């Protein structure tokens, strides 16, 4: 059992290596790679946001992120609704893998925020697993407070920075 999990993780790591970049992060334009760096993958369907199989559709219509209250990793009712949509989409599009990125606002030390982001990413991961997504298709990472998408120092920005973003990529596990 343990061996199997390990082997699958290795396989997952290998298959995602080609289509992820270090420091990719869930900024709004990330899928369009305008935040700097290489595109996430070149095997994505190119149909744009109107194609329900596209990454843009997942990002914009399904919703790629959930938000959290201060110092919490509890999913909100709105978060549950978004993640139900993500689970449905991932069930339909079973060739996609997802890396779930946890983020924190700047109110906290660097180390604590890394750990808090890991909690948030894991809350999303566990919810998606509870909705039937195989754990081998999911991986988590925390960026702590290193990658804010909003830059002001008040709640209007903090509330958007306290997020977990599901970043999808095409894999070959199926």
């Amino acid at each position, binding site marked *: 059992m343990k061996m199997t999990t390990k082997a699958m993780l290795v396989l997952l790591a290998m298959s995602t290596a080609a289509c992820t970049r270090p420091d990719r992060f869930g900024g709004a334009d990330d899928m369009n790679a305008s935040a700097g760096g290489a595109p996430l993958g070149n095997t994505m369907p190119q149909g744009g946001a109107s194609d329900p199989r596209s990454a843009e559709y997942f990002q914009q219509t399904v919703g790629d992120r959930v938000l959290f209250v201060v110092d919490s990793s509890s999913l909100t009712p709105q978060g549950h609704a978004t993640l139900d949509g993500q689970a449905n989409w991932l069930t339909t599009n079973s060739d996609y893998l997802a890396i779930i990125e946890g983020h924190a606002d700047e109110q906290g030390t660097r*180390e604590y925020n890394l*750990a808090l982001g890991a909690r948030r990413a894991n809350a999303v991961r566990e919810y998606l697993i509870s909705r039937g997504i195989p754990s081998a298709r999911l991986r988590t990472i925390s960026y702590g407070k290193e990658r804010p998408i909003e830059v002001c120092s008040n709640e209007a920005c903090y509330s958007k920075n306290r997020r977990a973003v599901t970043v999808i990529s095409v894999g070959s596990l199926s």
Partner: protein
Amino acid sequence: MKNQFMIAVLAAVLALGATAPVLAQGGPLRLTITDGVIEPLPFAVPLFQAETAGAEQVASDISRLVAQDLNGTGLFREIPQTAYISQMGAFGAPVAYPDWRAINAQALVGGAVSVNGDQLVVKFRLYDVFTGAELGEGLQFAGTVGGWRRMAHKVADAAYSRITGEGGYFDSRVVYVAEQGPKDNRQKRLAIMDFDGANTQFLTDSSTIVLAPRFSPSGDRVLYTSYESGFPRINLLDVGSVSKRQVQTAEGEMAFSPRFSKDGSRVVYSIANGGNTDLYISDLNSGASTRLTSAPSIETAPSFSPDGSRIVFESDRSGGSQIYIMSAGGGEPQRVSFGAGRYGTPVWSPRGDLIAFTNQESGQFHIGVMRTDGSEERILTTSFLDEGPTWSPNGRVLMFSRETQGAGGTSALYSVDISGRNLKPVPVQGGASDAAWGPLQP
């Protein structure tokens, strides 16, 4: 509640300062560093003698840097050269003490510099003006002309040490994260510099996120967190060769917040797995790992006691993050922080007497110190975002990161002494965070 406490602490510190004898008048020159407010000790550094032709410039540079180091502590105050009644004679010649007493210079630093090719020799003597005697023996340092700043720092360390009876901290280096770019596209890379911001050298490029570098006890290696692999992992960097490798850790989705053991052979760090962060320790050579904590809460930011027997760390097992101490082998931790707000990033003083920390309370951040049993907490700084203290080699000064707020917010390094005095920015080019202060250099 918190404010009242802080006022009480401040009052206690001030009262202590008012009654503490800091300079015994009439006796030999001795400055006792107390936690109270003191009157800086007046000193003079006449231009060092150039003993070889062409050494004038470096002699001048070295004597100015010695004065700058001593002035920068806040414990000493330089008497301007324009006030001098006479100049120093040849190095080692009798000193005209009355001329220095007349301008109230209590300490006098004399020096001479010679240059032969690339070789630089600096000699120095320290005089106690009011007793009219030399304080300690003359000293001589040899190095290269390019390393003149280190020679000056060594002279200043010797003077500081003789007057205060404590180790110095000027001939030391700081590894930190150099920052560039706006908040939503910040580029980070590791850099190393002298304690005073000079001689900056970059150790990594900015192609990936790097965080929280930590020096080995001898200052030859650096541990840090890197996203180079796509996920947070711990890297070990050799400062001399700038070569690096990933450290083998316990299995986990993320490894971060590393710090060396006191003998430099092991690393204590955090692993996050399934959303839970715990502490582990690994041998840097064999990779053998031991789990130190097993709690559903966040355990991170570990730091060893100077004798290596205990580890201080932060945990939110009680709700908000607080500071705990446990045996270096693990086991049941004792909570030591009980003040208002949250406590994090504890760092054990090299003297063993204090723990420095980051405190977050009512929307403000503070750097503070407490005794290792949590008593005598002192909040030293306040700002929108202060974090990540690191100790000077002698345990008297803290360096930390201060980030300004808003869209244009940037991070800079500051230093403050453990009484809360002498708060000032460290002159660094560009943004900087996550400083780690290394040992005195050999």
